[in-house]
């Protein structure tokens, strides 16, 4: 009962924040309020016992997305452009669709209902078969990387495509990414002593924590996506405090391209390796003598691939905005 009340309270805060974001004209305020929105969403996920999703939402939504939006906001005027007046037709269409969706949501089974169709055959199958076939404690990672490996492969390629799209739009002309970046100009916050010292203390731990999340994703909430986002947060802190020039020489743009594409390639090659050793595409059981060990090897390597791609893409997007001009 208390969980229900807390959940309702948080959701109502969410609605209030969403209304405030829509109604604010200053873009800076809107970006900050969307940080609160992300944190509230992550809390809701946490209440629903979805730890992996909560971690990803916080790391990507409240952290990296806020920084990326601020980096982009630096380049444009601070107020929202005067909008067109509301048209009656669009308001009617949106209201009708929303009401239809709310009405349809009443047909869904209640949360956690044991008689719901998903709880009848597929969820018990995953819960039974994971200790036997894959033998890792975190069932979410087992489902994500092994049972539904195709979906994760698609996600990695979607992230890579998004990165390519952004680099084409922002990176420079004639298909040469990163050619518009001025590495000499930016000094970042290096004049302020306190952030510099604090960042120097914290960045090694952030990167170490990212590695922990990457490899511990089989035993506790974590995995490639979250680890990539936290790693990028550490490097972003470095480049904010020491300046873009230094950050671009520490991890040069060529390395970022290699990381983004290499991660997806690594994932795909695990699948092909499975085929070469006699199984189907993305079948990890044939990668070693013992099928369970094969699953472990497969999961570790593909999580590494996911982490590499996410890191490369997010960092490329950040540099494309922040080191511009």
């Amino acid at each position, binding site marked *: 009962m208390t969980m229900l009340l807390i959940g309702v309270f948080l959701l109502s805060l969410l609605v209030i924040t969403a209304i405030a974001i829509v109604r604010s004209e200053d873009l800076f305020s809107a970006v900050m309020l969307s940080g609160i929105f992300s944190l509230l969403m992550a809390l809701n996920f946490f209440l629903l016992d979805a730890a992996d999703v909560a971690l990803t939402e916080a790391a990507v939504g409240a952290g990296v997305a806020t920084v990326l939006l601020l980096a982009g906001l630096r380049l444009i005027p601070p107020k929202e452009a005067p909008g067109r007046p509301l048209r009656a037709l669009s308001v009617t269409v949106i209201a009708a669709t929303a009401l239809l969706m709310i009405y349809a949501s009443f047909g869904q089974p209640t949360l956690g209902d044991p008689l719901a169709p998903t709880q009848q055959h597929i969820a018990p199958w995953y819960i039974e078969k994971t200790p036997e076939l894959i033998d890792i404690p975190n069932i979410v990672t087992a489902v994500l990387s092994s049972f539904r490996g195709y979906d994760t492969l698609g996600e990695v390629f979607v992230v890579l495509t998004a990165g390519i799209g952004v680099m084409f739009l922002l990176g420079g002309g004639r298909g040469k990414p990163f050619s518009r970046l001025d590495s000499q100009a930016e000094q970042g916050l290096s004049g302020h002593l*306190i*952030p510099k010292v604090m960042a120097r203390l914290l960045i090694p731990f952030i990167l170490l924590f990212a590695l922990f999340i990457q490899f511990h994703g089989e035993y506790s909430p974590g995995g490639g996506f979250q680890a990539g986002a936290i790693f990028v947060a550490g490097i972003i802190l470095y480049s904010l405090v020491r300046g873009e020039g230094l950050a671009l020489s520490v991890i040069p743009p060529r390395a970022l391209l290699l990381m983004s594409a290499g991660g997806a390639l690594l994932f795909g090659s695990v699948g092909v390796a499975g085929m070469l050793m006699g199984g189907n595409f993305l079948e990890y059981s044939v990668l070693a003598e013992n099928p369970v060990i094969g699953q472990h090897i497969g999961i570790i390597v593909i999580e590494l691939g996911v982490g590499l791609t996410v890191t490369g893409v997010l960092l490329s997007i950040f540099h494309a905005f922040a080191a511009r001009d």
Partner: protein
Amino acid sequence: MSEILDLIAGLLVVTGCVFVLAGGIGALRMPDFYTRIHGASLTDSLGPVLVLGGLMVNAGLTLISVKLAAVMLLLMVTSPTATYALANAALLAGLKPEGVEHDTTEPEKPA
């Protein structure tokens, strides 16, 4: 013995929550931005330390305490830095404290 530990843990958590609430009320009721920062940041550093300390006493000597100690250390280190960054950003953007007649507030220029 364990009742005393529970009592200490409870006291620490409740004191921490009093500070957290005080910070929240202070951020709402203070008249000016710089006073709000002062109120909110003091309790952003102390309140979590007390609450997490109480939870650590509750958990005993396990891995959980180590993780809680890591969170506590991180919050103790980053909250004052964030306050510094925020106050400096506001000064740099020209937000003046109330009641200052002539312009003696110089933002810290990057060296």
